[in-house]
């Protein structure tokens, strides 16, 4: 299971692409590229083989349950892929004349309407390219709203259990970040939050359902308190999949929330991206939403960009990306939404929550579940490393799961729990698949409790054993370089020289 690098098997003379003509001579003078670039080529057959083989070293949702908590690895329908490749979507240019891309605008608008309705919000900014980009969008809206009000509030409150992106986003936009502690029950401490509110507080960033997999019961009270204090409520919507169709964040006083289309709405993760993070906005923040966006009129759809923004949308904080956002994800998400409909989306939330609670209750006897007593969880079940044998950790359980044929759950997150294991099965797993997973996790947990030494060196059946991440970071090798001639095959000149 070793696959050489393209730099080791390819050659700069080989190509897997044909052209119908010879290149004509260029007249670019000194700008002409003369030095070798060093890009290896392969024939098509070799290319297909290289990447096919590489792909087989990956685990993926297509191969089995992928219970990464807070990452929502649900099934990615193949219809989504087919639709995204329709020529009117895949082969259209973002700057085509508006009359030639009405269908694309219709997709953006139709998806926007769904997102607004499902969240009970006033409007939506579609262009953010990922969840973290969406957070930035929401925070910039808040900043713009404060500026419009002429207020200089510099503090954003962030609960301990927040995603790491939340404080990073706030800091990036120039805010000071302050933590709010969690209660014993794994939720935001409402009293502590209220106590901190004041004229310097721009708002809060809160994740709901939170990263402990719990619904913030006091969400509405939090929102009300923040609003009374003159702040805004940003909700991290990464976990919207737990409540879609059952709860509207707009009813809970949220001012801005990003939606990860690749989580709730099944667009593929692709080994780390692309994501897509539209942000729904309250009426208070809507005037500040970024350009461009699509509006519907009797004669068709219209794109609002710099030219017309002056009259239509004068308070916009500006553009966040070059074009319209992740169109390819919009087509997929809309396809998914239309497939499920209002009834199906509700079922999605219910089954996701049901599956998570089933895992929680099936395993709480063998793994410590710190918040199990505080009631049902939402879409993910949280466990800790309490009770493992001396010297055994969450990491060992994770690596042991690999040998059972599973991708591990999220580990060491959220930080509020020691040695956290966060399991999110999603709604697309069957009961049979869950039972098998529960059995596997139970067996590994028992081995970790009984101190089975073999577990310490897991995985044994993966393409690689545990990798040395420390060495990688200490002296980073980030690009391939021609290896120096190996000592056992010295070049003749070297022999002569030494």
């Amino acid at each position: 299971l070793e696959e050489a690098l393209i730099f080791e098997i390819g050659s700069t003379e080989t190509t897997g692409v044909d052209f119908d003509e010879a290149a004509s001579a260029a007249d670019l003078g000194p700008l002409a590229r003369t030095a070798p670039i060093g890009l290896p080529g392969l024939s098509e057959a070799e290319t297909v083989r290289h990447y096919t083989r590489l792909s087989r070293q990956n685990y993926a949702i297509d191969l089995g349950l992928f219970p990464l908590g807070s990452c929502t690895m649900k099934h990615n329908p193949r219809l989504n892929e087919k639709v995204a490749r329709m020529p009117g979507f895949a082969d259209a240019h973002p700057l085509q004349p508006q009359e030639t891309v009405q269908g694309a605008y219709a997709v953006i608008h139709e998806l926007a309407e769904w997102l607004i309705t499902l969240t009970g919000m006033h409007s939506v900014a579609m262009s953010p390219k990922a969840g973290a980009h969406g957070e930035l969008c929401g925070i910039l809206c808040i900043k713009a709203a404060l500026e419009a009000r002429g207020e200089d509030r510099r503090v954003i409150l962030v609960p301990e259990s927040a995603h790491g992106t939340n404080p990073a986003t706030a800091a990036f936009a120039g805010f000071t970040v302050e933590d709010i502690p969690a209660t014993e029950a794994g939720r935001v401490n409402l009293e502590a939050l209220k106590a901190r509110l004041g004229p310097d507080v721009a708002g809060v960033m809160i994740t709901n359902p939170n990263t402990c997999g719990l619904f913030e019961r006091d969400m509405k009270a939090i929102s009300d308190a923040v609003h009374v204090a003159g702040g805004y409520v940003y909700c991290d919507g990464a976990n919207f999949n737990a409540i879609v169709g059952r709860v509207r964040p707009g009813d809970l006083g949220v001012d801005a929330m990003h939606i990860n289309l690749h989580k709730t709405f099944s667009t593929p993760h692709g080994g780390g991206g692309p994501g897509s993070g539209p942000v729904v906005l309250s009426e208070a923040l809507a005037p500040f939403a970024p350009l461009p966006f699509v509006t519907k009129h009797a004669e068709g759809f219209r794109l609002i960009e710099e030219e017309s923004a002056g009259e239509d949308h004068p308070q916009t904080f500006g553009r966040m990306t070059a074009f319209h956002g992740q169109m390819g994800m919009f087509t997929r998400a809309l396809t998914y939404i239309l497939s499920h409909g209002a009834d199906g989306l509700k079922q999605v939330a219910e089954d996701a929550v049901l599956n998570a609670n089933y895992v929680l209750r099936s395993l709480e006897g063998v793994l410590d579940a710190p918040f199990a007593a505080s009631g049902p969880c939402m879409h993910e079940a949280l466990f800790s490393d309490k009770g493992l044998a001396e010297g055994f950790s969450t990491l060992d359980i994770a690596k042991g799961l690999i040998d059972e044929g599973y991708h591990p759950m999220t580990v060491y997150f959220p930080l509020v729990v020691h040695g956290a294991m966060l399991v999110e099965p999603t709604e697309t797993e069957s009961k049979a698949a869950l039972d098998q997973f529960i059995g596997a996790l139970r067996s590994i947990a028992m081995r970790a409790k009984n101190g089975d030494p073999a577990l310490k060196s897991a995985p044994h059946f993966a393409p690689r054993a545990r990798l040395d991440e420390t060495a990688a970071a200490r002296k980073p090798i980030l690009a391939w370089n021609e290896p120096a001639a190996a000592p056992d095959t010295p070049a003749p000149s070297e022999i002569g020289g030494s």
Partner: protein
Amino acid sequence: MRYLPLTSDDRSAMLATIGAASIDELFADVPVDARLDGPMAGLPMHASELAVERHMAALSRQNRAAADGPFFLGAGAYRHHVPASVDHLIQRGEFLTAYTPYQPEIAQGTLQMLFEFQSQVARLLGTDVANASMYDGSTACWEAIVMARRITKRGKALLSTGLHPHYRSVARTMAKYTGDVLVDGDPSLDAGTDWAALADKIDRETSCVVVQYPDILGRIDDMTALAAACQAAGALLIAVVTEPVALGLIKAPGEMGADIVVGEGQSIGVGLQFGGPYVGLFACKTKYVRQMPGRLCGETVDANGKRGFVLTLSTREQHIRREKATSNICTNSGLCALAFSIHMTLLGEAGLRQLAAINHGRAKQAAAELAKIPGVSVLNNSYFNEFTLLLPTEARPVIHKLAERDILGGVSLGRLYPANANLANGLVVAVTETVTAADISVFAAALKEVLA
């Protein structure tokens, strides 16, 4: 419902295990008045694959696809032929449906691919190292400006007027909040770049100079002198490449001394996709690597000494550093990076050079033919596959008239710079290998007619 495997029997059995009487009990933490009972009102119910496909196909047909006729749009997004094998490979479930490679033992496919991608990008851009990709070119550009501030501890960025106006908009948006000062402006209709003037503006407050190459009007220029001027003043030179195919024919920014090179990788492997998802390229000199935003993949060994790859230098990132992170980014554009890398592997250096030469040749042919139209001239004194036409009249209405004849004839400067009347007659025309000689003739004839 086709994506939901639980049967009613399963649900009952599972509720029994949980000890809940109903699903609703699991939502007990949601305040009762915020809990919705039935499916949300006013929305359609679930639909068959057939019905959804039909609906989406109808919307798709309301767009004029690029392949439907002569097509000359560029200005930051370029239409190139993507080999069928690229799309085949990125659809392999093991790539498509994997997550961020947090468990490297079972993610070597994605990780090795990212390492190869980083290596390809660094070589193409002429730099030492590259990251595992960004959202797109415009956000990569803005991140580069912020990175320059971190490195130089200065807050003034000089933007070339040849920088894509949307990239400028993004930078302006972000600068409003980070506090950076941007010096920028609209381009003037000169045959060459504004780089010499830009070099004169560099001062001790300057964190960076940002130039696009080829620029928004298609102009290309040597950035060696500008790089030297930056270095002398302790500022960084950031080069932005929106058409990486060009680098098969012209010198890489890194070769000419750029400190950070960012770009839009969409041209290679990704396709037009109405603007996204695209793939941001981000590369720099080794010495700046710990100030770089975004994911990085590095080589290491496993417990048995086998070569392997991991995400590395994550101490720069938000999940470790929270508010002290280099950026808030926590995805890359993995699947698009894969497409880029596969296409680049298929091309190889020989193929890329030939592709670039064909693009350039075709553009020269188009420029020559279009310049023959009375009143029309080519602005540029040099270009790769895109140049600016000066028309005797405003370009925006011309574009619409051409569209009526099913010709997508370029991007008007009027659309890119709506507030600047001086630029209204400019038309940016891109000519790639997908344009045929017949397309050029049809375009030239129609433009002549429309202008007549």
